[in-house]
């Protein structure tokens, strides 16, 4: 178990290093941080001093090591655009994005998995066909357009839900939450649905495909031949086997939620990290972009790790692979 976790973490390190290298390359070679930070008036001596301070006169690997050292401590320098520490900016925005992503993931999983199971089991019913048509439309609808349509219907025409912002938030230490107020919860609905819909359709199609695959296997036929009740066959044997591959891909899809949060946050003017990032891309604010990139990479690595761990618990074959192999073939 521990060996498994350690081996997975070791595998993640090169990925993180590669992403760090890209971030660093952006940081060090894109744009000219020195002139940006100095502004208009400066002397050559000031310039040299700043270059020394920033360590830009050091060899590449020393600079890279320093960058990683700083990154590990959450130190990414100042935003060019806002002249505030990047870490502070991100910490301020993170709760908004994480709460949104959490709700969207909940929508995607809690609705997508049952819909996928249903369409897999009853693939010729009219409801299944309706779900499938819906999913194809869902895959073809861009996230921002879904957001706009929802705003048009529920904010502009019906006036039921707010169209932008987080509503009232409550400060819990450094974390600001929208879960504790009515307006905060109402504000979460449209963005969560917008963000979750695409993943929902993907997860549904994935679960359905996997379910159909599993239902064709010999062990399902054998379970039926043993006279097990449909319930046990479908929701015990079939569903459990379906979830093994679904966990992996669904995990990666949920990672996509963080990325698509950029779009959703723009549509709903949601004060999260995605909005910060898109504003930084527009203004070529490299430190924020670099930090965001690293953070996203970290999120993906963590998701992968969690997915692998889940896999480990669900699939006994994997456990055997890491323990001593018992029995032969």
């Amino acid at each position, binding site marked *: 178990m521990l060996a498994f976790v350690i081996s997975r973490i070791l595998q993640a390190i090169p990925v993180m290093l590669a992403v760090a290298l890209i971030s660093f390359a952006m940081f060090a070679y894109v744009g000219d941080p020195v002139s940006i930070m100095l502004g208009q008036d400066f002397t050559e001596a000031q310039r040299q001093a700043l270059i020394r301070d920033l360590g830009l006169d050091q060899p590449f690997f020393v600079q890279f090591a320093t960058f990683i050292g700083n990154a590990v401590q959450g130190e990414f320098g100042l935003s060019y655009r806002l002249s505030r520490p990047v870490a502070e900016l991100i910490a301020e925005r993170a709760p908004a994005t994480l709460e949104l992503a959490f709700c969207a993931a909940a929508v995607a999983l809690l609705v997508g998995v049952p819909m996928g199971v249903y369409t897999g089991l009853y693939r010729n019913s009219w409801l299944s066909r309706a779900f499938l048509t819906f999913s194809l439309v869902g895959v073809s609808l861009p996230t921002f357009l879904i957001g706009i349509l929802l705003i048009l219907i529920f904010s502009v025409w019906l006036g039921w839900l707010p169209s932008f912002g987080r509503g009232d938030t409550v400060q819990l230490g450094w974390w600001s939450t929208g879960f504790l107020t009515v307006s905060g919860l109402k504000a979460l609905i449209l963005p969560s649905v917008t963000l979750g819909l695409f993943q929902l359709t993907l997860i549904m199609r994935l679960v359905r495909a996997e379910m159909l695959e599993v239902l064709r296997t010999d062990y399902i036929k054998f379970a039926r031949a043993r006279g*097990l009740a449909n319930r046990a066959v479908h929701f015990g044997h079939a569903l459990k086997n379906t979830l093994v591959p679904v966990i992996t891909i669904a995990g990666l899809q949920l990672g996509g939620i963080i990325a698509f949060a950029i779009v959703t946050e723009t549509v709903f003017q949601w004060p999260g990290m995605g909005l910060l990032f898109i504003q930084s891309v527009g203004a070529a604010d490299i430190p924020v972009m670099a930090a965001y990139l690293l953070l996203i990479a970290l999120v993906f690595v963590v998701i992968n790790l969690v997915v692998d761990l889940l896999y480990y618990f669900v699939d006994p074959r994997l456990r055997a692979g890491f323990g001593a192999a018992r029995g032969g073939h």
Partner: protein
Amino acid sequence: MAAILEVRDLRVEFPTRRGTLTALDGVSFDIAPGEVLGVVGESGAGKSMTGAAIIGLLEPPGRIAGGEILLNGKRIDRLPYEQMRRIRGKEIGAIFQDPLTTLNPLYTVGRQLVETMQTHLPLSDRDARQRAIGWLEMVGIPAAAQRVDSYPHEFSGGMRQRVVIALALCAEPALIVADEPTTALDVSIQAQIIALLKRLAREKGTAMMLVTHDMGVIAETADRVAVMYAGRIAEIGPVRSVVKSPKHPYSVGLMSSIPPLDRRVAQLSGIEGAMPRLSAIPQGCAFNPRCPHVFARCRQDRPELIETGTTRAACWLYDPASEKRAPEAVQHG
């Protein structure tokens, strides 16, 4: 003794876009309690299909279009799914071909045994587990008390097939439908599995329908044999008669394709040609295009099973009403 299973004129059809295919046509046989009926034939002859029809698990869109199946005198081919489900496992056990794919990889063998028994028998968790261990011992799994909590992948292929046998027998059905139970196994293991099946069937008095294309297994195990060709039964009779002196020209060819172990032969005398596709079964006897003894009537009328003295064969050669042809012409190769 009354037959435990009676199949009467069974017809299975597959509606497809290009018309309805008849996969089984007029299949009739019965199995007495404790009897082993071997079913042989080439791939696609309808052997497995017959088994699937009996356990009520034909792959859609396949369906029983005619005839009847009786278990202990009760019709089971028209039962609603739920009633048929209660019969599967409880009264008819099934064994599939490939033990590597038949067991659910995510459940321990003990759990699979327990859930099967508890579906059909009123057993407490503790009793079911004890019985599960008992069954694993009975099918020859060493250290059954520990292995009961192992997952399928922790067993070898032969051991897994023993587990499958335990699963098929654990609710003590009166009939087992075994579909190619040894085909996927190493030759060295095949004999052990067959011996196990034979011993358990005898001990429990279980009847068995043993589907295989391996004539060696049949000769070893079966009491009677049915030879299938193109969805029909070509010949049926006691195993010694069918193997030693087959009457239907197809059976003759099939038996002669078994290489004799005791002498070297230069060439196996197989049968010319191939079995027709289901969409192109010829009129009359389905075997007529390949038959060395074909005559006019074979191309027009379909033969029913006709008493030949030792076996019953669907062949006009044995019909006294046929234009007199010499049955002696059929040589056992």
